[in-house]
């Protein structure tokens, strides 16, 4: 017996076979991830259309998906205008939420007293339902745009604030010690250590805030309830409801959902771009 018995070649073939199987499974998974939801959607839409057609349900009660799609095309100029208003308010509110949330979070970590003083109010603002605050805001704020912005901002800013605060405080303790040993200034510590540590947390908060800003904008518009020029998708839904224009309600609803999905996708992409080189969350597991 020798210690260097050659490994039989058949094993190599076997490994190749296994490797191929694995590769095939990976490929199937990749395709299924896209195809399966699409199949589900196609089936659901087909069923919906069938139910509507077979039961002859009138379109002012439940329009079929075909009619909704037609309405989407036919009413496009009107819907686009409303969509742009909603998107504008959502993005502006998100921007202010980011600036305000991050700014306040940095202040919090710089001074315990600032945090002690203001954190409870941030929580109160967060836990009070926006629907309850919004009517008051519209009493005191003349500009409708400003009112909508404030509402959307109130809803969106808390996740940014709380996640960023958490992130700024969760820098590795040994690294903090290291910065102390090397006599780092407060600014250096913030810039080189705390902000990069907070980035994944902030991006997580941002993704939540993006969805919430849209919700805030829509809810506020329901509350504001005034139409006319410069009204968004929520008002389009209200108005179409009054006129029993159900297909338009569905079309506007579809656009709101699509906006939410696009915002989420954009923020996820941003997160991926910023983190994929180093953060564990962005690393694909090896199979």
């Amino acid at each position, binding site marked *: 017996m020798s210690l260097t018995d050659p490994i039989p070649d058949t094993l190599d073939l076997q490994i190749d076979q296994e490797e191929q199987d694995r590769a095939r499974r990976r490929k199937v998974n990749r395709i299924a991830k896209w195809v399966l939801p699409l199949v589900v959607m196609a089936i659901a839409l087909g069923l919906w259309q069938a139910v509507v057609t077979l039961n002859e349900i009138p379109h002012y009660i439940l329009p079929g998906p075909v009619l909704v799609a037609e309405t989407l095309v036919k009413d496009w100029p009107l819907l686009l205008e409303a969509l742009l208003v909603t998107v504008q308010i959502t993005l502006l509110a998100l921007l202010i939420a980011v600036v305000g949330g991050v700014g306040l979070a940095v202040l919090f970590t710089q001074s315990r007293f600032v945090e002690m003083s203001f954190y409870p109010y941030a929580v109160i603002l967060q836990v009070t339902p926006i629907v309850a605050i919004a009517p008051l805001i519209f009493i005191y704020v003349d500009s409708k745009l400003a009112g909508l912005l404030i509402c959307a901002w109130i809803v969106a800013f808390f996740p940014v604030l709380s996640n960023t605060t958490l992130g700024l405080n969760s820098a590795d303790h040994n690294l903090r010690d*290291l910065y*102390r040993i*090397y006599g780092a200034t407060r600014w*250096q510590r913030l810039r080189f250590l705390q902000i990069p540590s907070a980035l994944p947390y902030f991006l997580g908060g941002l993704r939540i805030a993006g969805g919430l800003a849209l919700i805030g904008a829509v809810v506020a518009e329901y509350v504001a309830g005034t139409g006319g020029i410069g009204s968004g998708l929520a008002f389009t839904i209200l108005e179409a409801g009054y006129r029993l224009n159900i297909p338009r309600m569905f079309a506007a609803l579809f656009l709101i959902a699509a906006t939410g999905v696009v915002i989420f996708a954009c923020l996820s992409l941003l997160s991926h771009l910023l983190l994929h080189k180093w953060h564990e969350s962005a690393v694909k597991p090896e199979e």
Partner: protein
Amino acid sequence: MAEPRPVILSMRAVDKVFGGDVVALRRLSLDVRDGDFISLLGPSGCGKSTALRLIAGLSHPTSGRIRWEGAGAQDDLGVVFQEPTLMPWATVANNVWLPLRLKGVRRAAARHDIMETLRLVGLENFADAYPRELSGGMKMRVSIARAMVTRPRLILMDEPFASLDEITRFKLNDDLLAMKQQLGCTVVFVTHSVFESVFLSNRIVIMAARPGRVIRELAIDAPYPRTEAFRGSLEYTAFTRAASQALHEAMGEAA
């Protein structure tokens, strides 16, 4: 006998008490001389890490005093923790840059020192890699490079190799000695491994727990450079036996 090397750090009757009644260190006195490789060896809870934190200025003695000899000497140190403690968002080179960056040295000006130090730890080809792409041993090398990039007089190491496998640990022990030789720095090294402490040190300070205190000091007067051959020598075996015995005494007293 050669003239004794100058003392660069002296600790006299240092006590550290936490929360009023937990005595982490009792009457620690230690002179660190220029060029020393001192291991603080002892069971967990003997205050060896506390001693290191006191030297690093991360915590202050409850009583007693710690004195640095020479102006500005206090800032002249590097630290390696038990974990590599790298910044995951920064490349290897930027991690090593950190101590210089905090002193206001720009990247371009630091480049030479960074590359030189990476060469010293054998990672010059990994300057642009991110920490998560490296093995545990390589991360530790980056951590050591970061501590050495300012060419400090004193390097503090807190069980740096405790979580590495033995093969990697031996290799890093060899390399650490070579680096120390080349830089001529002084090292205070915390470990709970008898073998490691004997191989690396010229002085082993054996400590006991509850309360943390020094039991005795052992001189390992085998000449440097020490190589693989030293690990196989009778001398080495004798030293490890002596250190083990002293450590047993320390444990016995504590129990």
